[in-house]
């Protein structure tokens, strides 16, 4: 499903070259739940962004569902992000002036789904995260947990093949965090979606089929921990 081969991501700061990713090789199967852990600056988010088509590798190949993202054009990447990848962010990244329904429907706007149809689909997506009652509210009127549920509904609204969650519980209390993680795991499992979850929290990471630990832009030498689901 996801194949990364010798993936590098370099940034230049003056004369200095920083290797955010330094030769990553990683294969992830369809429907697999993989946690990515590691200290700050280890390259977790960069790896997630590259798999999600938000960033491009300096060198190496990234193939997702048969599509080589390293060679894709802006248009191809935008379609990929719209149809195949769903993002959940730590800071929710909901449009502040949109209602929950409008936020969830946003990917469908770029997929050119007609207004009536997309509202219907977005309503169903909100129902799966039990947010139907709050669909007319803007993010400012929602709690942290509700915002993240709306963000999950938005990530899933276009039936993606992979779900990329970058510290999705970082801004939530522990009780809400557990609920959100459970929701992510349940929905991706039910729909056969590959779930990649970046987290600092080992308790959350241990829920995954596999834990990928990163350090200094590399996957660290320790064997991946397999956890039964």
């Amino acid at each position, binding site marked *: 499903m996801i194949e990364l081969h010798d993936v590098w991501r370099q940034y230049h700061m003056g004369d200095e070259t920083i290797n955010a990713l330094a030769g990553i090789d990683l294969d992830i199967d369809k429907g697999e739940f993989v946690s990515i852990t590691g200290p700050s600056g280890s390259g977790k988010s960069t790896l997630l*962004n590259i798999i*999600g088509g*938000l*960033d491009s590798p300096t060198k190496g190949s990234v193939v997702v569902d048969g599509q080589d993202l390293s060679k894709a054009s*802006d*248009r191809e990447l*935008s*379609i990929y*992000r*719209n*149809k195949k990848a769903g*993002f959940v*962010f730590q800071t929710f*990244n*909901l*449009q*502040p*002036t949109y209602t929950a329904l409008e936020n969830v429907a*946003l*990917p469908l*706007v*770029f*997929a*050119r789904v*007609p*207004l009536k149809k997309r509202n219907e689909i977005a309503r169903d997506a909100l129902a799966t995260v039990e947010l139907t009652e709050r669909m007319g509210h803007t993010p400012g009127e929602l709690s942290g947990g509700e915002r993240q549920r709306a963000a999950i509904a*938005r990530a899933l609204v*276009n039936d993606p093949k992979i779900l990329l969650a970058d510290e999705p519980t970082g801004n939530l209390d522990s009780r809400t965090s557990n609920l959100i993680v459970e929701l992510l795991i349940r929905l991706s499992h039910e729909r056969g979606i590959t779930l990649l979850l970046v987290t600092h929290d080992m308790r959350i990471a241990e829920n995954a089929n596999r834990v990928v630990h990163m350090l200094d832009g590399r996957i660290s030498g320790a064997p991946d921990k397999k956890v039964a689901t």
Partner: protein
Amino acid sequence: MTIADLLRSAFSNLRRRKLRSFLTIFAVVIGAGLVSLLVSLGIGAQEFLTAQIRATMPPDVLIVGSNPNAFQIGFGGMGFGGSPQELSEDESSPYSLSPLTLEEIDSVRNLEHVERVDPYIMVSADSVRLQNSEKRFRAQLSALPDYIIRNKELVAGQYLDDYSQGGCIIANQYLESFGLEQAEDAVGQELVIQVGQMTSFIGLPTKTKDYNFEIVGVAEKTLSSTQVMISLTDGKEIARFWANAPDLYTDEIPPALLQVKVEDSQYAEQVAGAIEGYELGALTSADVLGLVGNIFGIIQAVLSVFGLIALGVASLGIINTLIMAIYERTREIGVMKAVGASQRTIRLLFTIEGGVIGLLGGIIGVAIAYGLGFIINHVSHTTFLEDFETFDISLFPWWLVAGVIALSTLIALLAALYPAHRASKLNPIDALRYE
């Protein structure tokens, strides 16, 4: 993203920052309003002058002169602004005319599509007065074929035909000069037209003669405020005295200028071409109107510059507003990219937003200008244009409305290109991290 969604998004974003959107649109309103109002005034004045010219020179009438250069219209020919025009060896002054030959007149008369040919009679009157009054007034005496007289609207009395004798039609403005309340009061009154011989123009000893006419009609008000119209028959007689040439307009001294009526205005250019083929000069209504059009084109262009400058300044406002919007919405742009917006979509979003500012500004600007034009027309009809009820000084043809709205939209779209490009190039990761 569909066009409907792009428009919905543009309107929604403009609503979010109401004051800023209003001020940006207002700048476009001023530009679009200025352009449309000033051009509408130019069009109104041009239409008015055109109507006046058409009344004396209908589109199916040509003036023919014995000198092929007689009607060299243009700024150069008029000795006004253009470069002096070079004359060839056999070319005479454009202002010197000799009588046409009878053969030339016959050639013109026998041309295909020519309906009738009349001498163009040059006459002049020193003054006019009512017979029972000593008050004399200036007058512009015109001896016209009956089909041209019938182009004028009368408010009282009747028209003249070519063979009428002793009847005249006076300009409406004479009613006030003569102290008459009703146009009908003028009809039947005796008018004395005093004619001095043309040598008086250069100060030579001259004779004057009084001609008695009966007022048979009063014309509607036009710019020709001192015109007194008489028939061709009377015109010939007065012209002979005026020019001190008893044989003028006979086979001995044929006219130097002709008025040629063609069957339909569509043949005017064709007949003019044929006449020029006989080495004669020909002037059509279109030639005169073309010159008027050129002059008004320049006036309108100069007036439009003010509005265009305002639109140019407004476009800077649009650029500023959209760049501000990019800073405010950086994170939103990042989110849109994360969920599937391409660079092209983001570019379109901002371009359309600029276009909507231009479109709204254009529509509101033209609407306000239309309203002001309506007020100007109303005020002018009750004041300085009281006598010209049918004349609107501000005119808004459909092409002006559509053109100004299209222009302001286009300028706004162009202004939006740079901000839109900048927004589209935002790195989604940087945009998502933007605080």
